[in-house]
């Protein structure tokens, strides 16, 4: 007679139970993050959207909880449109410059660097993110100041007249780089560069060497290979990186606050409306703007075939 096997320990019975019910195991794994994402993240996003359809009573300063489009009417007054256009223009310029600066670095990391060098480069790209963003922005204020190191360097290269010429351009110039849109642009490109390098590097790493060889084998010079094979396949990475740089610039209020002048950016407007003025609906309407812009951008990128290679 065969004696009954001793009952397996509880942990093993749980493992077996879950192994036979993969759907339950998956549900248990996904429930916490999904609850977080659904309730906290999407919930707050939804309440933001709802807030933007309320309005502020001008007399009492109370939020009127009734559906109205009047807040959006306020959003499109010339002063606010000015803020939106300025911020979007800055975000677009920063994105283009960051992509241009990131691509060669990412290309070198993905194709040429030895594993050791690649690790060092990863470290170098990520290192700035370990220190406080605020400290870095303020240190740039010192670098860009009239008496700062950049100006000193430029003067010694006898290029100070070129900087003066750039600062004299109305709209982007100012008394010095540390108080101008030009300086703000430099700092934005610096702080968001890692967010552009990493996705482009990841996309380039996924392009097999044999595709580049095949293009050359079929008669394409390196420039043509880059344009017809490497760039289209890296485009999803460029788009991913540009989503970061674009949306981060659209929402930022610290860099404009530290390096800007009286001309406001969206982030500052949101801060002012929900804090000082207590106009939560208008602040909410302002934050909807970047979301709409990003949605439109993604749609356009998809139309242009940026994700075809995914």
């Amino acid at each position: 007679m065969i004696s009954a096997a001793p009952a397996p320990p509880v942990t093993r019975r749980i493992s077996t139970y879950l192994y036979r019910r993969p759907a339950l195991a998956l549900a248990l794994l996904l429930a916490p993050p999904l609850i977080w994402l659904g309730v906290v993240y999407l919930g707050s996003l939804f309440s933001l959207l709802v807030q933007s359809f309320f309005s502020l009573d001008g007399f009492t300063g109370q939020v009127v909880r009734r559906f109205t489009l009047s807040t959006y009417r306020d959003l499109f007054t010339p002063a606010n449109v000015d803020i939106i256009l300025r911020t979007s223009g800055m975000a677009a310029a920063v994105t283009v410059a960051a992509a241009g600066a990131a691509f060669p670095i990412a290309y070198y990391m993905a194709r040429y660097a030895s594993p050791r060098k690649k690790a060092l480069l990863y470290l170098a790209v990520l290192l700035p993110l370990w220190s406080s963003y605020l400290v870095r922005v303020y240190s740039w204020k010192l670098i860009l100041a009239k008496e700062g190191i950049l100006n000193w360097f430029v003067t010694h290269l006898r290029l100070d007249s070129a900087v003066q010429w750039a600062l004299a351009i109305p709209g982007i110039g100012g008394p010095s780089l540390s108080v101008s849109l030009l300086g703000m642009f430099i700092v934005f490109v610096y702080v968001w560069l890692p967010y552009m390098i990493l996705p482009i590097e990841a996309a380039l790493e996924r392009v097999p060497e044999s595709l580049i060889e095949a293009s050359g084998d079929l008669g394409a010079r390196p420039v043509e290979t880059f344009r017809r094979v490497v760039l289209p396949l890296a485009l999803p990475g460029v788009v991913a990186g540009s989503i970061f740089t674009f949306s981060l610039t659209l929402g930022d209020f610290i860099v404009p606050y530290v390096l800007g002048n009286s001309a406001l950016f969206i982030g500052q407007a949101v801060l002012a409306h929900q804090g000082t003025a207590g106009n939560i609906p208008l602040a909410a309407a302002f934050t909807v703007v970047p979301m709409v812009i990003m949605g439109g951008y993604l749609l356009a990128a998809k139309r242009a075939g940026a994700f075809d290679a995914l």
Partner: protein
Amino acid sequence: MTVSIPAVHFSRVSRSFGDVRAVDDVSLDILDGEFFTLLGPSGSGKTTCLRLIAGFDHPTSGRIELHGVEVSGLPPYERDVNTVFQDYALFPHMSVAQNVAYGLMIKRVPPHERAARVAEMLSLVQLPGLGDRRPAQLSGGQRQRVALARALVNHPRVLLLDEPLGALDLKLRQQMQLELKAIQQQVGITFVYVTHDQEEALTMSDRLGVFNAGRLEQVGAPAAVYEHPATDFVAGFVGVSNLVSGATAAAITGSPETFTIRPEKILIGDAGTTVYDGMCAADGRIQDVVYLGAHTRYRVALAQGGELTVTQQNVEATSLDVQAARDRPVRLLWQRAHNRPVTTRP
């Protein structure tokens, strides 16, 4: 020797990676219009040779000529050769037709001519009407055909194929072998084919070169290489062979010189069978029997030491019959003329 200029000419070509000599002093002529196979185990230097012809890699020393013109320093895009890659290397962001048209587009061939040549090529590789698909929507065999069409559409003077059938299953591979050979005869382009599969090499090639450890061991027609292997490595790699040396060789032939004998050339006789003139014989006992359907492989331990592998067609024998042969004392017989003396490398 032929007087025409060879399609590919290697003169004392070596390629080192650090201390490793991937290609070691190879001299070779591949004739215009022939189907030439570079055969060898992995790491033997055959793929490196192909990359040297394509221009993806450059020799450390030596000279490579294509149709009499030295190409040693030329990049791939300035060589009149095209490659079918092992992983096909189809551009994932382009349709099948765009993939095939790529080389023509680079050469600025007008669009209407391009379209006509792409359509013609897709029907040659039996994929008509699939031009709008993406590579990801194709099966492995179809991708392989697209890769072939993409290379052939440029009418290169030499087509390089790097184990193109490696990822396909056996049935499809055998079908593609015959198709490739037929296409080669139809277009008349020199094919240089890399494979580690000796059966594939024997099936398709006009001539083949056997590589071992970076060196070219033997060049010749399939039958010549199979029947007259120059070295023990070739004898063992191209087909299966028994290598007999030392005391065992002396006991059989009267001379200790190493020779090889193919398993299918040996007959199994009862112990004490008469040995006629011109025959070799060896007594032994059947050690092991492997039934393989069409034929059976026997491992026979010899009385004078060593063992021989013998294969026999299963003309009458069944699986049960051949299994019963285990442990039976036998006399192995074969024509002395089938012995092939070979040189052994240390």
